[in-house]
């Protein structure tokens, strides 16, 4: 019984839902503010994303289109939020205590990271709107294209730590032998990972699935009120969890000492700033260009990185 309560606390409060959603919404504000500064604007105040989500969750009507499957249409935002929160909880519980993981938790994390995209796709198809279907089919193609280089890039820290598939082992190996980023293969696979994270988060230049100017909001078009708010929360949690995963794989993870937290915050802000700068300096690419880009040069880079890691560089 105590165990269940403890897990519930971990999942719902710290470091699960409440903590990662708050941090994610705050990171979303950093994104909006940086975007505004890049465009020489002022940008919204720091509580803007919180107000947006509170408004959508509590004060707006939730409309359900006629004839859709309610279970899928309303269940998909919840599934998306639940899996994003689970990833965030897992990596934040494992990171300070490297012994607490289980064998293969890295693989579980990779699979859970796919679920928000899949649920977005199913939600889009379920909403019976032609633009949403178009967005969902684009999301599917995008997912097929970025998952391959993403998995090959993840292989680099795995190979370097002697084929460990536990996050804890990868972190302990880095603590003993230096961080993954400090090697040639580490740098190359970090770049590949950054591009894949950009696509996973649905940021420009890979926001093809929700292209605002051509297919309105794409997969989100029929969502309103609570369902849209939950999707926004899931996106915020992903924005928090993915850079933390990169910190674990390339910078040796998080320790909860005062110095460790400062270091993590600096690394997190650097990764977030890189993502936002890429977002703001590139136009949206077409879906066929995105597929060619990920299956061509990016996969080649990832394979080179994996080969270098195999050779021990």
């Amino acid at each position, binding site marked *: 019984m105590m165990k269940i309560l403890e897990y519930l606390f971990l999942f719902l409060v710290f470091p699960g839902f409440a903590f990662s959603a708050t941090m994610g919404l705050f990171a979303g504000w950093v994104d909006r503010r940086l975007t505004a500064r890049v465009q020489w*604007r*002022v940008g*919204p105040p720091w509580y*803007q994303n919180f107000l*947006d989500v509170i408004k959508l969750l509590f004060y707006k*009507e939730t409309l359900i289109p006629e004839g859709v499957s309610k279970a899928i249409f309303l269940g998909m935002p919840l599934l998306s939020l639940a899996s994003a929160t689970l990833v965030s909880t897992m990596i934040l519980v494992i990171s300070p205590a490297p012994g607490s993981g289980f064998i293969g938790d890295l693989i579980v994390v990779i699979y859970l990271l796919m679920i928000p995209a899949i649920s977005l796709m199913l939600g889009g198809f379920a909403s019976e709107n032609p633009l949403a279907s178009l967005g969902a089919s684009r999301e599917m193609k995008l997912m097929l294209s970025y998952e391959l280089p993403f998995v090959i890039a993840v292989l680099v820290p795995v190979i370097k730590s002697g084929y460990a598939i536990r996050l804890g082992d990868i972190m302990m190996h880095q603590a003993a032998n230096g961080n993954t980023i400090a090697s040639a293969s580490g740098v190359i696979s970090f770049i590949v990972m950054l591009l894949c994270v950009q696509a996973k988060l649905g940021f420009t230049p890979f926001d093809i699935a929700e292209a605002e*100017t051509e297919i*309105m909001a794409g997969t989100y*078009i029929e969502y309103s*009120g609570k369902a849209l708010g939950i999707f926004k929360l899931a996106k915020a949690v992903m924005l928090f969890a993915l850079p933390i995963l990169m910190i674990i794989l390339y910078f040796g993870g998080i320790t909860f000492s005062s110095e460790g937290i400062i270091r993590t915050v600096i690394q997190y802000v650097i990764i977030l700033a890189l993502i936002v700068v890429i977002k703001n300096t590139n136009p949206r690419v077409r879906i066929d260009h995105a597929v060619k880009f990920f299956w061509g040069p990016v996969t080649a880079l990832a394979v080179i990185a994996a080969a270098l890691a195999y050779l021990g560089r």
Partner: protein
Amino acid sequence: MGFKEKVLSKSIYAFHLSSGSCNNCDIEFLDTLTPRYDLERFGIIMVGSVKHADVLICTGSTNRLCVPRIKKLYEMMPKPGFVVAWGACGSSRGVFKDSYNTGAPLDEIVPVDVYIPGCPPKPEAIIAGMKKLVDKITVKK
């Protein structure tokens, strides 16, 4: 002013509908999102789908084909939602008042909350109009 009014007035998602305008009002709306005026400071952003919107901004002279569509979009907007009549044409059909193809003025089709006059309204007038909208939301029970 309660918490709800504060939240609703500080996070305004605007959907923009052109019901047969000459495009000038539409361009002026985009101007207010640019560095000099920057409406995002007040939490106002433009959204692509009316189902995300809090405010329906209607430009143009509401021609006859657009009338049923304006009604439909107003019904599709999740409530609480507001309507802004934008420009001289949106407010009163402007110089097209006696034209053969303008059906009815906007405020006879859907309830209008704020009028922003001008042909096209200047960005300053738009920001003043948005302030009127915020005042209307905050005193609304």
